[in-house]
């Protein structure tokens, strides 16, 4: 069997294996020692608070997991959004608070039905509120979602997942309508608008932490720990690489 690999693939494999080991080690560590201290993420605190208000007011919470899909490269972002959706759905099920969610791609729509089923199992009753499928075209989705938010008089708009510029449309329209919003995505192009349109923002990879912060699921916590160790490793690699390159030890 032909198993040729080039340098980047070898490095990729090595990094993947290291990551896997770190993930496993962190899992054990979290099991043994519990949660590590976590940097507070304001947006997630705000999410809790906003949910609270929605529960009190009985108005719906709108959750958008972005315009990504499942089965393509933005799956991870969609999963981060789905984790938040799952959390909100669960709360909605406990406290009978309507949870609206809107979807741009049909594969995420199916996942959303699953999330609702899970929430129903956990909380006993399905959360009130609808699941909307809009349209896969990003801007159509964003405009449509903001109409749903308006019609259903949502109290909070949570947008966490894979977004392009359409984030700005959705975010600003909810802002204009006086609805609180909390958002985050990974695309650096969109981040300034995430930052600008709401004070409750998650920058870049912070959206992947939502699962751990909200659910304190040990697997998710372990993954945060592993990510941080990997981060240290990368930082060291970059600095060492810089030194070696400057000294002419490695190519360049």
């Amino acid at each position, binding site marked *: 069997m032909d*198993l*040729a690999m080039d340098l980047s*693939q070898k490095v990729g494999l090595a990094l993947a294996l290291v*990551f896997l080991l770190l993930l496993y080690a962190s899992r054990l560590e979290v099991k043994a020692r519990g949660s590590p201290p976590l940097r507070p993420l304001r947006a997630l605190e705000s999410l809790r608070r906003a949910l609270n208000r929605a529960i009190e007011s009985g108005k719906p919470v709108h959750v958008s997991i972005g315009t990504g899909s499942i089965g393509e490269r933005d799956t991870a972002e969609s999963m981060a959004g789905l984790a938040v959706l799952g959390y909100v759905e669960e709360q909605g099920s406990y406290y009978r608070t309507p949870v609206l969610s809107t979807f741009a791609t049909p594969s995420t729509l199916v996942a959303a039905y699953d999330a609702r089923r899970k929430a129903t199992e956990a909380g006993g009753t399905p959360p009130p509120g609808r699941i909307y499928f809009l349209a896969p075209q990003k801007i159509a989705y964003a405009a449509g979602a903001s109409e749903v938010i308006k019609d259903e008089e949502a109290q909070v708009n949570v947008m966490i997942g894979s977004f392009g510029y359409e984030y*700005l449309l959705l975010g600003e329209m909810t802002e204009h309508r006086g609805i609180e919003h909390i958002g985050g995505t990974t695309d650096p192009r969109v981040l300034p608008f995430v930052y*600008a349109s709401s004070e409750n923002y998650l920058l870049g*990879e912070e959206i992947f932490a939502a699962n751990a912060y909200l659910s304190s699921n040990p697997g998710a916590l372990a993954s945060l720990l592993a990510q941080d160790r990997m981060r240290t490793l990368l930082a060291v690699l970059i600095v060492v690489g810089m030194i070696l390159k400057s000294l002419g030890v490695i190519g360049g």
Partner: protein
Amino acid sequence: MKKVIPTLVAFITGIIVLADFLIYNPLLDQVSNSLLNWALLVAAFAFIVGLLNVLIVHFTRIIKRERGWPYSIVLVLAMWLVIIFGVLDPRGPQGPIVSWVFRYVQYPLQATLFAMLAFFALSAGYRAFRRQTVDATIMLVAASLVFLGQAMLISEWGKWFAAIKDWILSVPTVAGMRGILLGVSLGVIATGLRLLLGMDKPYAD
């Protein structure tokens, strides 16, 4: 059983596709490509779920006369018109009616909504920079310099601003963006690995 099969399916397909990234092997390549192709096909089936969702949701809205229900009528009618003409025409989206709708309805609407982002960016920026924090100030200064570098097409100052802009775009911006991208890739990989290993099972009820 109900949990094991899906977990296995996710693991096996995932490993094959991932292996194809990491190893050059014609057979693997072929298998992986067909998996990707299948994923596209399977996801297309989900459109039926989406279609049903749209119908059910909007019919309920119309029947219950919920707020904004007349718009639901517009939405459902528009959707059905496109679907009927698109499915009946063997050329599908290239058929005359669907492509007319695309060119003169969908495209201008989308393009105009995108054009509105100019205004929304303005109002968002107007608010954000007023936070008067160190962060917002740095952002404002960087944004202003890039603006000037791009906008000064006419004046002689242009080249100075252009030089500053180029430096910002190619040095600190690259640094900040790389940090973000590297971090994001860590999050993405961790999420993916968790899923492959079955630590996360978003597919299991």
